[in-house]
């Protein structure tokens, strides 16, 4: 049950984004939990619900996207969806494939509820 650790880390990062962008209130946090992320989306939601009680995120909605597991073949460069965790290129049957998405928990975006005087332009924050 490491979903709790993960949600705690997530909230620390959201707080940092809030500080960096002078945001007071977040209405929605959107994350992505891929099939090979190693965590259960339902348990992430439950851990979130418990951890935000009586915090500034109590009324913040957590949206969990569940993207497909995608890989690219090293031999024929084909991109394909990995089904049933079979890491086999459907084009050339090569085993030499690399996962390109769906193996992480990603913080996608946050939606800030802003006051009129504090409007800021949206921008992309790089890692």
């Amino acid at each position, binding site marked *: 049950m490491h979903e709790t650790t*993960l949600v705690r*880390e997530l909230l620390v990062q959201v707080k940092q984004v809030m500080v960096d962008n002078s945001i007071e209130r977040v209405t*929605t946090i959107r994350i992505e939990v891929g099939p090979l992320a190693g965590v259960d989306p339902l348990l992430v939601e439950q851990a979130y619900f418990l951890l935000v009680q009586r915090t500034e995120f109590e009324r913040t909605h957590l949206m969990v996207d569940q993207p497909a597991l995608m890989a690219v073949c090293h031999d024929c460069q084909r991109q394909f969806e990995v089904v049933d*965790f079979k890491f086999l290129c459907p084009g050339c049957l090569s085993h030499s*494939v690399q996962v390109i998405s769906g193996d992480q*928990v990603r913080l*996608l975006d*946050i939606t800030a509820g802003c006051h009129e005087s504090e409007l800021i332009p949206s*921008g992309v*924050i790089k890692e």
Partner: protein
Amino acid sequence: MTLIEENTIAINRDVQGERKREAAKLRSKMGRRGTLIVNLVSSPGSGKTSLLEATAKHWNGTHRMAVLVGDIATDRDAQRLAPWVPVEQLTTGGACHLEIELVKRGLAKLPDEDYEYLFIENIGNLVCPASHDLAEHVRVVLVSTTEGDDKPGKYPKMFRTSQAMIISKTDLLPYVPFSVVSVIEDARLIQGDLSVFEVCSLTGHGIDGWCRWLESQREKLVASNFV
């Protein structure tokens, strides 16, 4: 004041990114010192500690190795290994996996020598440890013949993120319904490059091949320092 406008800020960041970078830093630091870090993962009771005992006996002091051994409670595994190698017990007090901070703390407690091999014996669990980079150069998953040959398909992330699989307790093969062929087939469908070793730590069967593989992994690591 009332909320008047919503503003979405794109972030697109791996939530575990910071920890992964921390692990990568330790991995490269230890690699430069010539220490190969091996993260041993498996279900409880698959024979991680027995494998380490057999490895230490096989090398018989010819290779400098140390062990960080993780458990939820007790230091029994550390006691078992202490006659053979420097060992530090990491007790998680209930947590189901080891994290990089615990590894760093354990590393600081080990006698400060230039180890050629640092083994991290993870908590017995095929789920959570798969998601935590402990700065290892290689991850090795054990499957014992008594726990069944269906494990790779049931725990794909663990097998996908491992470089080698050890089939342990091979002495029990005549007594259990376990197919070595199908466990290897299943595992290689998930991780095509997986190296496989069949071992019995009690009799020493297969330990030689496992140790030679470790030596070749370390040779590769050391050679990469001179590129």
